[in-house]
């Protein structure tokens, strides 16, 4: 274990640990929502195995009175629901951790410090073993000093769509739990942490999946075809659920190849279309990406990274597909890659992705990862009504040429049926009309046409986020999902000489990135992969080789403490 001394992240961290199928997710949503509705800032993230029942999974819920948005190792309250839970969380437990366990479920453990919470027993007395989780919610909300009224009315509304008997069951379960929780004597450190948690005004609670989905709708997405693959499926599921309320076709394709080709067809016909996938599924779409490049057909591709190679660790997190996405497709054509770090960026950049794809007639990527899509947190609400769309489709005339050559390389885009022209798009090299050609000069012109769009695209690059003092000498550089973790770790460092540079657009890079890198004396890349792919990309684009990397590739996200201690070691030698 890395040294963590010196970094003690704020708020209370509750970790629920148990087997798949034990309903941890229910506790997570109940408790997180309850805390959110109470007005607490809340963060939750899960790490889970690629199986449906059994094994050992855990969820962390952080609660605080100011924003919390990152995974931490520290556990203040551990709720152990299965025998394996203790071992699984062992390295994160300290003498300050309060351990609650249903000893009936996990078996006898020779540890006096464990507080027995008779979830099963209480649930059975209430009427059904299923509500054991609701008992746990009751206990925890009492511990968090959430008023019983609030708890009861929330539980009421949470189950409001179910039968009355279900509501009643859960109400008595949560009440019983509350009574137990109130009697538990909390250790002083937790009491102190809890006391500082106050109520907030209405917040917004989102995970990455929901952010991407809402961003897509905001960007005008009306078609998504995809094939299920963890951790990317959530976007397809969310949009499918929303298809009752918004005009969008959501189709489960027979495979990923069909998915991208359907999306390209939909785009050709005039829809704003997207796919969502993960590494192995994306690998199958690469010919389609190249087709998008050749047809100059807008499409948005959400890739939620998970650890590879091959099937790898299906439900875990990694940032090792950056280069695959950057170089995907045979032949040469422009693209854009966004790597949102915050849920807000998730919305904004997905929205922007659709507009960029349309404006430049290119494939645009939104590259996330399991940690990003599965992590929720509450934050100040934002106004998205200002996110407008620009539509570029033109009505065609008789003389319409899909690939008309001009200065910018962007030919006016028509769609079939809108206007009197014919719209011919072609996977072979083509002339201005979209017909196959093997003319060497036309070929060169078409290659140049496609590539010169990059010049304008570069002008619209999203600048990196810089956090820190203007003259800081050290820069911690990150991209995608790690921003909040790095941010909290650097805050912990409390060192004016250390700043953060986060790229939410990794390609093409905004020119500011080079400016920042040139000014510093030490750079440190933080990446959830084994070889430092972003470090390489920075070098390729800026010519500056960032000296240090902090890498992790075990399938888990970084924790605030890990980043802190590694930075500490790098900067202060220990």
């Amino acid at each position: 274990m890395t040294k963590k001394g010196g970094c003690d992240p704020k708020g209370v961290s509750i970790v629920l640990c148990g087997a798949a199928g034990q309903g941890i997710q229910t506790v997570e949503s109940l408790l997180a929502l309850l805390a959110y509705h109470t007005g607490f800032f809340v963060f939750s993230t899960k790490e889970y195995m690629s199986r449906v029942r059994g094994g050992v999974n855990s969820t962390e819920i952080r609660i605080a009175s100011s924003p919390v948005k990152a995974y931490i190792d520290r556990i203040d309250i551990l709720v152990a629901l299965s025998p394996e839970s203790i071992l699984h969380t062992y390295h994160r437990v300290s003498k300050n951790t309060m351990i609650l366990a249903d000893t009936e479920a996990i078996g006898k453990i020779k540890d006096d410090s464990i507080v027995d919470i008779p979830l099963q027993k209480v649930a059975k007395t209430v009427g059904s073993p299923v509500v054991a989780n609701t008992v746990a919610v009751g206990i925890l909300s009492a511990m968090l000093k959430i008023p019983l009224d609030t708890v009861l009315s929330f539980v009421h509304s949470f189950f409001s769509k179910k039968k009355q008997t279900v509501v009643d069951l859960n109400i008595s379960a949560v009440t019983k739990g509350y009574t137990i929780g109130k009697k538990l004597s909390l250790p002083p450190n937790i009491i102190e942490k809890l006391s500082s948690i106050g109520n907030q005004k209405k917040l917004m609670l989102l995970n990455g999946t929901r952010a991407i989905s809402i961003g897509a709708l905001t960007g005008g997405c009306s078609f998504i075809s995809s094939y299920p693959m963890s951790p990317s499926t959530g976007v397809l599921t969310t949009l499918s659920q929303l298809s009752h309320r918004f005009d969008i076709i959501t189709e489960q394709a027979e495979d990923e190849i069909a998915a991208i080709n359907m999306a390209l067809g939909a785009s050709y016909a005039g829809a704003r279309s997207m796919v969502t996938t993960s590494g192995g599924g994306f690998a199958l779409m690469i010919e389609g990406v190249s087709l998008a490049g050749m047809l100059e057909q807008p499409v948005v591709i959400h890739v939620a990274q998970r650890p590879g190679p091959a099937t790898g660790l299906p439900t875990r997190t990694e940032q090792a597909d950056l280069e695959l996405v950057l170089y995907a497709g045979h032949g040469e054509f422009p693209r854009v890659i966004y790597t949102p770090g915050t849920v807000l960026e998730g919305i904004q950049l997905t929205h922007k992705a659709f507009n960029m794809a349309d404006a430049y007639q290119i494939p645009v990527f939104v590259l996330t990862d399991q940690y990003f899509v599965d992590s929720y947190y509450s934050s100040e609400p934002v106004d998205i009504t200002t996110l407008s769309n620009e539509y570029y489709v033109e009505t065609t005339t008789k003389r319409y040429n899909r690939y008309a050559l001009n200065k910018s390389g962007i030919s006016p885009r028509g769609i079939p049926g809108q206007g009197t022209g014919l719209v011919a798009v072609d996977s072979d090299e083509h002339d201005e009309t979209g017909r196959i050609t093997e003319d060497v000069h036309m070929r060169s012109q078409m290659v140049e046409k496609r590539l010169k769009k990059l010049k304008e695209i570069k002008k619209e690059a999203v600048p990196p986020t810089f956090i820190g003092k203007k003259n800081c000498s050290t820069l911690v550089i990150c991209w995608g999902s790690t921003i909040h973790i790095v941010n909290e770790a650097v805050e912990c460092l409390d060192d004016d000489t250390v700043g953060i540079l986060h790229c939410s657009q990794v390609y093409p890079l905004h020119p500011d990135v080079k400016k920042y890198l040139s000014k510093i004396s030490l750079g440190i890349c933080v990446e959830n992969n084994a070889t430092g792919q972003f470090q390489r990309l920075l070098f390729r684009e800026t010519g500056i080789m960032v000296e240090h990397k902090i890498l992790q590739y075990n399938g888990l996200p970084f924790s605030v403490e890990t980043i802190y201690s590694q930075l500490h070691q790098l900067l202060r030698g220990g």
Partner: protein
Amino acid sequence: MTKSLFDRGKIDIAWCPGCGNYAILEAVKSVLADLAIPQKHIVFVSGIGQAAKLPQYLKVHYFNGLHGRALPPATGIKSVNPKLTVIAESGDGDMYGEGGNHFIHCIRRNPDITNIVHNNMVYGLTKGQASPTSSLGFHTPIQVNGVILEPFNPLAIAVALDASFVARTFTGDPTHMQKILKLAIQHKGYALVDILQPCVSFNKINTLHWFKEHTYYVDSSYNPRNRSSAFSKALEMDHFPLGVIFQNNRPTFEEQLLVYKKNKNSLITRQHDIKKLQELLLEN
């Protein structure tokens, strides 16, 4: 409407002299003219191969996609704008080989599109390798000892998948070809038209003459509505039956989509309400 409307004039056609593709091109033009579908509503979608070049020689909208991948974009197009007449066409290698998985699942999905397959029992464009429909024993530069894979029977498989329209025709009989193509385009739902087409350059076995000798017309008493008998009919491979082999009236993909339940207009005319999205953001 006149056939010449679809003519592209004096252009260079990349097919070999004597190729069956010319007859298909002419038949397609006639049928489109006969059906009087406005040009601006016709979209061809093709894969890659000699057959797949057909849309290049027509005055229509087209999406000339990847080898084996005509059906997914065709489905995408049709579902986004059901007003369009969408015709997916390609070769046997493209549709039944590389594209086999889409062939299967597109039939299950049943969008209202027409699927024309130029079945020359060989890979033309890549110069003469076996295709899924090549006969047993067919020699090629790769199948040096003759084909050993059981020939793919597209009709039998389509029937097994409960395809909504399954037919076969032959470039040697333009009138029949036109009749079948017309029925296929008019059919509401996925319609397969497998066209036996001689490749004069690479298939010296299944020639125009050979096809003439090895085909016959299903007679007027044949009932294409019975799946079991359609299957038996489709299995005939000593003499290939020509005509509509199977037909049913399954609901189409598009008409079952939520977006068209209340509103029949093309999807592309609609926009999401940003206020509803703002509400969504705060919903929990």
